């Protein structure tokens, strides 16, 4: 049997399909069609958690997304989801769940001792209580609070599931498949429009699944079944059950979380994506998101067994579960009388309906009296009793103003209290779409006012709470949406016949006095069950001067739980309005933000994780590097060999060996990743003159030149060598990680400022593979590979280009050098890159050719004082700061020149590029180390000392095989005036001294580049 509280008949559960599950380690049985919450209730389990601050026992309150208490962790190990609402977890065989709020269990909870501390946990307690001493926060308060707060546990292992993403376009997206949403979808779909209908529940029907309504004189679910079947039969309709529209963004862009396999548990078929993220661009949106019932705020209203009246109906009618044996209904409106009738019809004893209204006179009230149900009008619950479950309630007369109770208390024994304080339209998505809300006094709720996008609310989401109204509004909204999207004439299909009860008005009642003196009342009137916020907290916040609803939210944490206060927010802002004596309309709501319900990270990540997180770019020679044991580094999206360790070598040894080969013999670098831009057009030279700081117009054919670019602010943007291929054609190279940015930069100027220049830029980075042959013996390697090419200094001078066949491959050979050594950079079409590389390695074998990686490249260039943009520069460094005045033209204009003429650019105390030689040649300064002018009095530790003025920082730092010692480049204030001075790098526990020198350490005469 699936629980002692299962009703014998009715419900949308399958009594022939029992399902076993475990909650907090104990076995239970439920039925197919149950949620975890309904299965627990069928087993008599109301107590499912403890409250956040006071660890008071808490039970299931709602039956859907608005549930504040029943927060559970589903699954085990890597397959687990924290913070699921038990009311939304579909039961499957073998389900394992735990409560996340109590430890070790909900029955015996050590945290309950916190209720003794309750005076410390008032509104804003975390700002007030746990202040000093500071270190206690990290060691004691925070871990303890986190454990007590119980926010579920993230799995330690990677998520084993697969998540998908889909993009879709819809003419009409209908959100919510209750009566209004189904009607809207039908009306829109019949016009032939592309309609998507998304609903968070497993089956369509919305509230009708939980109510005994009739449409056209038949059970309403028959109409639901026909509507769903018709929609499913239409080719342009996408019905999406188990799909929560969680975000409404600009230009009618909505995000949907579709749960495809959650209800199957860990045993779902492999390959079935657990969830799917839909990103939908809709021409029109109909929001039929329904409404959430509000609790009433009375003393001890948080005791398990106190539930929303509509939730009680859902458990009775949809799940065939009796949430209690003897019930009290407490209401301020007629709607909750339906709960009284359904309870009575299910054979559950009804102690009374307690109605806050003095003279309730609606049709249903009369029916209740006719049926012999005791109606205690003008009364209120002033308290509840019971340990882990409500056992009795107290009822007293409510004075006409609602501010006090009077007369003797009457005690009613009961184990279930069904509460209704009225309904709040689920305006979350409407509000996310930037639509405005207004407070409707008659219906006592916020309703949509002005739309800001192509959206229309319908049904209960629009404050229309009758079934007939929902159907009519849905049909009209669907037909109108289709017409505005270009389908149909906007005529709504005829509405089915529904009988509407003549309801009396609601009596807004935001606080139910308990009979205590007003100043001391409200400490156990819970407003936000999840955040554990009471009416007294709200009033305290108001007294302390926080009269904005946004401030009160942050101060008290009301509405800040994972449920975002779905049952709490309107009560909280109404209480605030009362406390500050202002109409509710003037207080307004807090901002509604996505997601409507929590969304797992796996869904947002989708397939974009692991190696698919970001594209990986590799050169044509990559396989060779892998086969030869290269250690790689990421440079932008590129994988570049960092160094090639031999057996037994560490990084330092490998890099030193690679550097020695380049300086003493011959070495090879895969330089393919360097950005390459083909610049063509009659005005190409004039264009380069404008974007580079130096002059280009007179560069000869086949000649190369180093160039530097600045931003308009005069700061270094990029550098590289550019070669003139033809009178109207140049090949520009850029820093590896900057290639796309430079191309964008060039395009921006050409398109927006200089459209008259006839220049075209094309990225050719991936079209060419580049092998740099470097070292004094480079000619001996290249010579035999390129027999037709003169390699001597006269035949092939430095900074020139030759076209030739290399290893039988047509190639561009550049004689340029980033190391200071004799060097040839051979470019071939990328397809031949590996062939060239292998040919070079074969030809170089007799000379001990050594492949080298980016670390050796960095050391070699730093020995020569060559900068790397992004390492020596950081967006605040001008060419002048780098001591490169020679590259800055005084005769022509270029981008950034005006900024270099500002007085600030020539301030003598700007940071300037210098070299550093550490006092201890074996010490390598850490890159990024700050520099000071005088040795600090004592070593810097973690304890705060007196501030020391910083005069610069280390930008590059290495150990050099060629120099036989460590060296560094640094930016130092007024550095060129400090050559010869000593600076200090204070590190944790020690201080390193270094002498400032010229930033060129090796071959200052520049002879080695000629071999």
């Amino acid at each position, binding site marked *: 049997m699936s629980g002692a509280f299962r009703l014998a008949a009715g419900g949308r559960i399958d009594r022939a399909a029992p399902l076993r599950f475990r909650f907090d380690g104990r076995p239970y049985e439920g039925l197919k069609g149950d949620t975890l919450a309904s299965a627990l209730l069928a087993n008599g389990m109301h107590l499912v958690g403890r409250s956040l601050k006071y660890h008071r026992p808490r039970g299931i309150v709602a039956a859907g997304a608005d549930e504040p208490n029943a927060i559970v962790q589903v699954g085990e190990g890597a397959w687990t989801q924290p913070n699921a609402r038990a009311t939304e977890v579909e039961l499957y065989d073998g389900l394992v769940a735990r409560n996340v709020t109590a430890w070790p269990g909900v029955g015996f909870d050590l945290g309950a001792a916190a209720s003794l501390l309750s005076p410390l946990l008032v509104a804003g307690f975390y700002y007030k209580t746990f202040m000093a001493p500071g270190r206690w926060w990290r060691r004691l308060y925070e871990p303890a609070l986190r454990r007590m707060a119980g926010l579920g546990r993230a799995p330690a292992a990677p998520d084993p599931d697969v998540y998908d993403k889909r993009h879709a376009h819809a003419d009409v997206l209908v959100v919510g498949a209750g009566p209004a949403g189904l009607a809207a979808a039908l009306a829109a779909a019949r016009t032939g429009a592309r309609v998507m209908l998304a609903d968070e529940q497993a089956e369509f029907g919305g509230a009708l699944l939980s109510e005994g309504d009739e449409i056209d004189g038949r059970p309403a679910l028959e109409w639901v079944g026909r509507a769903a079947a018709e929609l499913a039969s239409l080719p342009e309709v996408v019905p999406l059950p188990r799909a929560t529209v969680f975000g409404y*963004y600009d*230009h009618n862009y909505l995000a949907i979380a579709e749960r495809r396999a959650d209800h199957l548990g860990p045993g779902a078929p492999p390959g079935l994506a657990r969830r799917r993220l839909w990103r939908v661009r809709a021409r029109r949106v109909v929001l039929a998101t329904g409404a959430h019932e509000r609790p009433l705020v009375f003393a001890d209203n948080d005791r398990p067994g106190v539930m929303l009246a509509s939730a009680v109906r859902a458990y009775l009618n949809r799940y065939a579960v009796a949430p209690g044996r003897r019930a009290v209904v407490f209401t301020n409106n007629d709607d909750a009388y339906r709960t009284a009738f359904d309870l009575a019809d299910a054979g559950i004893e009804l102690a009374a309906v307690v109605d806050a209204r003095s003279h309730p006179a609606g049709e249903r009230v009369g029916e209740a009296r006719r049926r012999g149900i005791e109606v205690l009008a003008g009364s209120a619950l002033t308290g509840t009793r019971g340990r882990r479950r409500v056992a009795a309630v107290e009822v007293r007369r409510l004075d006409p103003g609602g501010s006090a109770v009077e007369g003797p208390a009457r005690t009613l024994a009961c184990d279930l209290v069904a509460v209704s304080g009225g309904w709040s339209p689920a305006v979350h998505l409407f509000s996310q779409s*930037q639509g405005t809300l207004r407070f409707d006094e008659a219906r006592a709720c916020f309703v949509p006012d*002005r739309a*800001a996008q192509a959206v229309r609310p319908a049904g209960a989401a629009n404050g229309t709470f009758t079934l007939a109204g929902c159907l009519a509004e849905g049909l009209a909204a669907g037909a109108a949406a289709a017409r505005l999207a270009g389908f149909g004439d906007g005529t709504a299909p005829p509405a089915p016949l529904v009988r509407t009860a003549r309801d009396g008005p609601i009596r807004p009642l935001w606080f139910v006095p308990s009979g205590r003196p007003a100043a001391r009342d409200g400490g156990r009137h819970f407003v936000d069950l999840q955040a554990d916020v009471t009416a007294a907290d709200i009033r305290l916040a108001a007294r302390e001067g926080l009269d904005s609803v946004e401030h009160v939210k942050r101060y008290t944490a009301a509405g800040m739980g994972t449920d975002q206060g779905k049952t709490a927010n309107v009560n909280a802002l109404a209480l605030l309005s009362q406390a500050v004596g202002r109409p509710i309309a003037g207080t307004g709501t807090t901002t509604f933000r996505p997601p409507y319900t929590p969304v797992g990270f796996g869904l947002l990540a989708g397939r974009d994780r692991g190696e698919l997180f970001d594209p990986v770019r590799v050169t044509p020679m990559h396989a060779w590097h892998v086969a030869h044991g290269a250690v790689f580094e990421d440079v932008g999206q590129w994988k570049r060999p960092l160094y090639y360790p031999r057996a037994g070598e560490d990084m330092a040894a490998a890099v030193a060996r690679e550097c020695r080969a380049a300086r003493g013999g011959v070495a090879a670098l895969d330089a393919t990743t360097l950005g390459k831009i083909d610049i063509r057009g009659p005005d190409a030279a004039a264009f380069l003159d404008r974007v580079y700081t130096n002059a280009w117009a007179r560069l000869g054919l086949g000649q190369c030149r180093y160039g530097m670019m600045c931003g308009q*602010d005069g700061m270094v943007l990029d550098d590289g060598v550019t070669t003139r291929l033809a009178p109207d054609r140049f090949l520009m190279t850029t820093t590896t990680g900057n290639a796309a940015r430079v191309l*964008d930069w060039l395009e921006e100027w050409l*398109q927006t*400022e200089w459209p008259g220049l006839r220049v075209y830029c094309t990225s050719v980075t991936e079209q060419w593979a580049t092998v740099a042959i470097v070292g004094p013996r480079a000619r001996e390697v290249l010579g035999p590979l390129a027999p037709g090419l003169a390699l001597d200094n006269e035949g092939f001078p430095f900074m020139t280009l030759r076209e030739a066949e290399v290893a039988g491959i047509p190639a561009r050979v550049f004689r340029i050098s980033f190391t200071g050594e004799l060097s040839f950079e051979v470019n071939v079409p990328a397809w031949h890159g590996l062939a060239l590389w292998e040919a070079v390695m074969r030809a170089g074998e007799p000379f001990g050719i050594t492949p080298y990686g980016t670390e050796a490249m960095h050391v070699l260039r730093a020995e020569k004082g060559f900068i790397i943009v992004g390492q020596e520069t950081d967006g605040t460094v001008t060419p002048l700061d780098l001591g490169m005045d020679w590259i800055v033209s005084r005769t022509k204009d270029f981008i950034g020149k005006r900024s270099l003429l*500002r007085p600030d650019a020539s301030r003598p105390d700007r940071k300037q590029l210098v070299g550093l030689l550490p006092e201890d040649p074996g010490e390598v300064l850490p890159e990024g180390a700050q520099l000071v002018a005088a040795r600090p009095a004592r070593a810097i530790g973690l304890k705060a000392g007196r501030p020391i003025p910083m005069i610069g920082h280390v930008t590059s730092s290495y150990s050099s095989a060629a120099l036989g010692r460590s060296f560094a480049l640094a930016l130092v204030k007024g550095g060129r005036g400090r050559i010869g001075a000593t600076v200090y790098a204070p590190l944790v526990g020690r201080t390193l001294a270094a002498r400032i020198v010229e930033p060129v350490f090796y071959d200052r005469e520049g002879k080695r580049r000629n071999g």
Partner: protein
Amino acid sequence: MLLIPCPWCGPRDESEFRYGGEAHIGAPANPGSLSDADWADYLFMRNNPKGWFRERWMHAQGCRRWFNAVRHTVSNEIAAVYRMGEPPPPAPGPGREGET
């Protein structure tokens, strides 16, 4: 996620575009003749209106063309797009309101 009507490619998701800030600033023809204050004003100062704003976009993952758009900074409504060099359209009226 804005839906931006590229004047060359048609409506595309915002994620395909790069934003380029206020339009019609225009680099000074002769920066050398500007005072430091005027140069700084050109370089750094931009309008940030609440309302209609003429701004630059580039269809980075499409045609890679720069263009101008007239966007309402509150409602994000895009009233017009026009190609570089084309004159800006007259200022739209107040932002359009959707139906309720």
